[in-house]
């Protein structure tokens, strides 16, 4: 799927949403996206990691090395307060956008 600004924005949102439920590492997030979107959002996993790091640079998430399931150390991401605020705002914007799109599309 071609990269687009829109998709990047939604990917950021998805990541924040997933992390708002619980902290996770990159692969875990990828699995959750597969599950949550029921393969509907077929973002190439390659765009996941740049998005994660971008979020960390902008301060919406933070990361640290933690031991994981198979006792290997993995980089685990946690959402920050700023990240939660952003999620809230963008979620609201999405709802507004979806609502108005729906009205436009349904209008006679």
């Amino acid at each position: 799927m071609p990269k687009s600004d829109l998709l990047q924005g939604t990917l950021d949102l998805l990541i924040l949403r997933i992390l708002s439920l619980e902290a996770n590492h990159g692969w875990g997030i990828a699995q959750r996206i597969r599950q949550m979107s029921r393969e509907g959002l077929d973002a190439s996993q390659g765009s996941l990691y740049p998005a994660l790091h971008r979020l960390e640079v902008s301060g919406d998430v933070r990361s640290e090395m933690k031991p994981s399931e198979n006792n290997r150390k993995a980089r685990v991401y946690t959402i920050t307060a700023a990240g939660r605020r952003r999620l809230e705002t963008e979620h609201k914007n999405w709802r507004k956008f979806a609502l108005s799109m729906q009205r436009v599309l349904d209008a006679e």
Partner: protein
Amino acid sequence: MRLLPYLREIGRRRQVAAEIDDELAYHIDAEIQSNIALGLSPSEARRLALRDLGGLVQTREATRDVRMTWLDDVARDVRLAVRGLLRTPAFTSIAVLTLALGIGANTAIFSILDGVILQPLGYPKPDQLMYLSTRAPAVALESFWVSPVEYFEFRELNQSFSNAGAFHLGEVNLFDGIQPHRVRSAVVDEHLLSTLGVPAAQGRLYLSGETNGTAPTTAPGQPPPGTAPIVVLSYELWQSAFGGRPMVGARVDIEGVSREVIGILPPGLNLMDHRPEVWLPAGLNPSDRQNRAGHFLLVIGRLKDGVSVESAQAELTALIDTWADRVGVSGEGVAGHTFIPPERTIYHGRKMPNAGHVLQFWPLKQEVIGPATRSIWMLQAAVGLVLLIACANLASLFMARADTRRRELAMRTALGATPTRLVQQFITEGLVLAAAGAALGVLVARTGIAVLVRAYPDSLPRISSLEIDGVVLFFAAGVAVVSALLFATAPLVHTRMKGLAAAIREGTDRHTGGLRQRARVCLVIGEVALAVVLVAGAGLLTRSVLNLEGVDPGFNRSRLITFSMTLPPARYPQSASRAEVYQSMLAHIAGIPGVTFVSAMSGLPLERRPATMATDYDGYVAGPNDPQEFADYTQYVIGNYFQTMGTPIVQGRGFEPADASSSELVVIVNKTLAETFWKGRNPIGQRLRPCCFAQTPWFTVVGVAADVKQSGIDKKAGTEIYFSLDQIARLNATIGTMHVVTRTTAAFDESAALIRDVARAVDPTVPIVRLREMDDVLQESIRRPRLLSNTITIFAGLALLISVIGMYGLLSYTVSNRRRELGIRMALGATPAEILGQILRSGMALILIGTAAGVAVALGLGRYIASLLFGIAATDPATLMAVVAGVMAVGTLACSIPAWRASRVNPLLLIRGD
């Protein structure tokens, strides 16, 4: 964007890259495990995992990019740029060399601009310091000395200045016990150093009343006899002559007087660019208000805090209006000499011949820098042009280089470089080149300045304290950056960003990239035009210097050796004894083999300031607009003066040996004086009476000499009176420094050594100063025009060389691009001569257009250079024609080489090898 994470990232770039690798590896492993759990084979699992990730390399690069700061980008660009530049050593070395010359020359001239014009004077609050002088319109003097009485009255009357000090400058003999030195002196009153705001570095400075004296001043820079035997030394003299040993309280022999050193000044102290080494008491007498008309002081005043120049000027004008009344002065002659506003030509029914004799002031810095400003700005403009030409050349080179890198750039674009990144890369390359050029250029500048100061010392004020400091380095960096931006973005001109990638990729080698080629042609034409302007300027200035050297100074300067000597009054109190010493010295020098004539005089021509002595001329009555009764110059001569100097006597006779002991007092006058005061009458037999001797006898004129240009080759000769030293000595007049001139047929070095021996035999404690040929005196008197013309000639040569290289490069490139076409034409029957002619003509067309443009610009800019020329107009046709011919000749030569190569093209090789 958070700054802190970024800053932390900078240091950990490699670590960050490793962490990203680890993270992705973890992901791949987890994916593989999950795939295996789904039943795939390990190799299948791995393949699927990698596919789903979407390309490990790209993901890794994309993630790294997010983490990369702009600093990493810059570092990477610089690395790439350096590698790219090193791959083309020829291009890189030419570019760096050109830049080094251009930036170096600009830096050198800017350090002069900064050190001379921009830097403030080295005193506290230097903008408050004003230089005071008087005007004397009666004798056509615009900036003249102040008399002691005028100075004292000024100090008492004015309210705008917080302090004012008086001084004069000169040289004195200093004997350190082993050998004599001639050192620069400043004779100051107690207020001068405090006005400047200079403290003592060791010991103390002059206290109130300590500099006073009662005897009259004898000569500039000399303390009058009877002043307190104390002196203040400069830091530099303390180090050089006394090795920095403790000197406060020690005694030094100055002019035969043993003086106690009371203090040492801080390093780097300068006064009117004279760099005095000893500071002596002035011996002024504040209670003596008789000497109203003896003007010999320089005065510096410091404005009070918060007082503006305008308000101080207004106050001074108001004071001058009522000066005479305030100080209670009236009457005629010296007793009535005072400041008078210019419009008051009649006062209380009396005529005021001195109307307009006022006190004036302007900023001290202005006085110190003086007319050097124009020369320096001209140098800066010239060197700026050279840099422009160099940048044009580099832009041209860059364009050619962009053409040859098409494939590399296309590959980069395929790998994902955006047009912005490519532009960034061009600019980075340019900056790297410019940085290398600037670093080298600073070295060039330092060498250049050292050479310049050595070759032309004292040619510009404050030149001795030039250095490359932070400001200059900042300028060099700025110039480098601007140049880089200019020439690195040149290949991208006329191209919009969107189409950039395509434009860079294309640019076929069939055509020659039409727009780019046209740009290069315009660049070359511009270069030639600028070079022509510079060469024209250099030509005009050089001819000015030749004109100056060709002026008849009034004497024959070949094979004439001169030196100066001052007998200290302490050891030779009687004028008569001093005259004897000089007589004996002349006699001994006459005995040196090769010497034909020898003589001595009190003033050395070509750099004298007019003394403007009041003189009575018998039988001359000055009308309202006629010159006042003054003499500009007086010369005391001894020996066979006129024959030694080669100054012809046009009427009457010169001095004869009999005059020395004769009771009839005689003088010789110069032509200008005879025509000024005895116009239409026979000057021989007329009488004149100079002021300021003990009794003022009348002298009879016995001869008229040709004019000598006493104050400069480029100035008019003034009125001059020659006295016989022996006669003057009998009248007990003061005899100061004498300049001995020797005409010899032998070589300078031998004669100089022998002359030194003779002088040392006469008195070993008195130094021989400035033993040199009169030719050198002339060259020194025109050192500033010489500096200017030589430096601009070098720049013009550089400019011409660079533009010729640019022209050659362009033509070579064109020829090599058109080899196929030329080969075909030759195969079709064109002769080599025809090909040569065609290429040559196209090159010469460029030169012609450039030259024409350059001449037009040179004519337009003519008025800016006019004030620096002597004896030649800024639009002098002969010079311009020579410049045009020269530039065209050089240009044609440069074009002939590629043209020759074009005609040597072998058509068969070309067509076959295509």
